[in-house]
């Protein structure tokens, strides 16, 4: 187990370095990057000054990378837009995004797994085929389009406000109403974000279950006279869920990317929205930092998932 852990940590570290290098290369070396901008007479001297401060453009290339890395880690990168430290701007909003993503993830796992397990019990039955078609639909629908349809419907039919973290007329409401209001504003974007994930995960669960059911040990369990429910929900499910644990890691990048669109649609003040506004304003320090942080979070998420898998599967836990 410890050997497994050590190996993974080493890989993690190397990948981290790779991420930072790639991020830096993308932003500073790509055509249209800040370097080119310094040559552009239209760009204001204030921005050029900030860029030189942020990127040490006067120093040799490899030093630029390390200096940037140091600045990133110590919070000394500053936004082009308003000069504030990038990490501060991110810190203000990251919890909103994390909250949104957490709720979406909870919705995904709590709906998709039972759906997948249920479908696999009677494969190719009418309900299963319906579920399969529904999953394909969920995978194919553009999230923002669905969001707009829902907004259209909700506003036209119910007259409910949907944008932002809370309704505008919040002051006049009592505490329970405020909580309800916040939950309402949270559930809608989280649910729509979750649809894609539910579709994918339910299919994956289903095929994992179908794979497990074919195994010899399921036949053995039946031969002991165990009732079908126990064979299915104890012996099969436990094995089928193992690979799903590793999916925890993959959900994070998807949600951060999906966040950008959803946060824009619903005017949710999270880092997705910040990232989009930064791209619009060509605020490179912010963009880069968010990119790098997302990548790092993904990496950590994967690592934790691997760890969980190592703990859950006895074949790895006891070498």
């Amino acid at each position, binding site marked *: 187990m410890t050997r497994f852990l050590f190996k993974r940590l080493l890989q993690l570290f190397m990948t981290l370095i790779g991420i930072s290098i790639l991020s830096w290369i993308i932003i500073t070396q790509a055509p249209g990057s800040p370097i080119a901008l310094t040559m552009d007479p239209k760009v204001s001297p204030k921005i050029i000054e900030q860029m030189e401060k942020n990127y040490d453009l006067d120093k040799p290339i490899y030093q630029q990378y390390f200096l940037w890395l140091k600045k990133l880690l110590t919070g000394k990168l500053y936004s082009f837009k308003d000069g504030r430290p990038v990490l501060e701007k991110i810190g203000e909003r990251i919890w909103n995004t994390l909250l949104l993503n957490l709720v979406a993830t909870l919705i995904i796992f709590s709906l998709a797994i039972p759906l997948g397990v249920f479908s696999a019990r009677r494969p190719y039955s009418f309900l299963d085929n319906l579920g399969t078609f529904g999953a394909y639909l969920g995978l194919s629908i553009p999230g923002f389009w669905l969001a707009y349809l829902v907004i259209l419907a909700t506003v036209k039919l119910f007259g409910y406000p949907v944008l932002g973290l809370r309704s505008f007329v919040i002051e006049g409401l009592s505490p329970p109403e405020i909580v309800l209001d916040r939950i309402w504003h949270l559930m809608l974007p989280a649910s729509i974000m979750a649809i894609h994930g539910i579709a994918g995960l339910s299919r994956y669960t289903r095929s994992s279950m179908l794979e497990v059911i074919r195994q010899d040990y399921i036949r053995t369990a039946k*031969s002991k006279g165990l009732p079908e429910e126990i064979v299915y929900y104890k012996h099969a499910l436990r094995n089928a869920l193992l690979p799903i644990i590793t999916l925890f890691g993959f959900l994070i990048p998807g949600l951060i990317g999906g966040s950008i669109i959803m946060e824009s649609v619903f005017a949710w003040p999270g880092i997705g929205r910040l990232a989009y506004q930064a791209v619009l304003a060509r605020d490179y320090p912010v963009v880069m930092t968010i990119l790098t942080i997302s990548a790092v979070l993904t990496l950590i998420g994967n690592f934790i998932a691997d760890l969980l898998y190592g703990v859950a599967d006895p*074949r790895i836990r006891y070498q």
Partner: protein
Amino acid sequence: MNLPLLEVRSLTTHFITEEGIVRAVENVSFEIYPGEILCLVGESGCGKSVTGLSILKLIPIPPGQIVRGEILFNGRDLLKLTEKEMERVRGNEISMIFQEPMTSLNPVFTIGDQIMEAIQLHQRLNKKGARKKAIEMLDRVKIPFPEKRIDSYPHQLSGGMRQRAMIAMALSCQPKLLIADEPTTALDVTIQAEVLRLLKEIQREMGMSVMLITHDLGVVSEVGDRVAVMYAGRMVEYGPAETLFHEMRHPYTKGLLESIPQLEEKRSRLNAIPGQVPDPMNLPEGCKFHPRCYLRIEECRKEEPPLFEVKEGHYSRCLRWRECR
């Protein structure tokens, strides 16, 4: 003899696939008496495993189907039982062990858990009692340090020990009949002998009957009381082991026995049965063995022969059984 414990009559199991119907088991009948070991012998694909699975109704039903027959266990026809009633029979009155102990044990549960499961289900013992019984069983199958091993996972045990654990699991509720599907095939030769010896010992102690499915005639000679030889889904010869080894009356049985290389003789070629096992979806007309048979005549192609009684308790499905040997 007394009354049979298990009576299989005209068991027929088919598999319906896209390419055609596979008649895995056709019209198979035999009996198993209390306290004896019946060996079901044949090459791969002859239907012996399917026969074993059919008895416990473990055939996957969408492609598979038990088309007709009766399986009388202590007088009750198992084929007529509901699934819930079958669950009370499985693991309890009839148990089964399988060929590959690594894949036949659930990798995420300890062997203790898996053994205790059956005990708690059928014998209604509480956790403590079940654990005690499980340790006893592990001891019975000669696994060293059973009180420690009970908390091991399957992957932590060797092949031979896994098979013993499976045996412990199957016997934990004292079944009257054990169906053993090639239990030693996947094991090393030396371990094979040990496991067989163990099986025979326990069987004698518990007065249990065993239906041992195997392709290995050596195994049959070690432990078999009576033998049933299968070919292409049919029973072709059936009788006491002694008799079959010395006075076999079916060309296929003869071929099987003669193909075993003897150390004493010097030979330049092995005695293989000419031809190949037929494609189950494209079986020959009449007697299924006739294309490869040295005794064949015109009659053999016309109709499938019935079982002829060679003498009491010994049957052969060959028209020319008298000339055989």
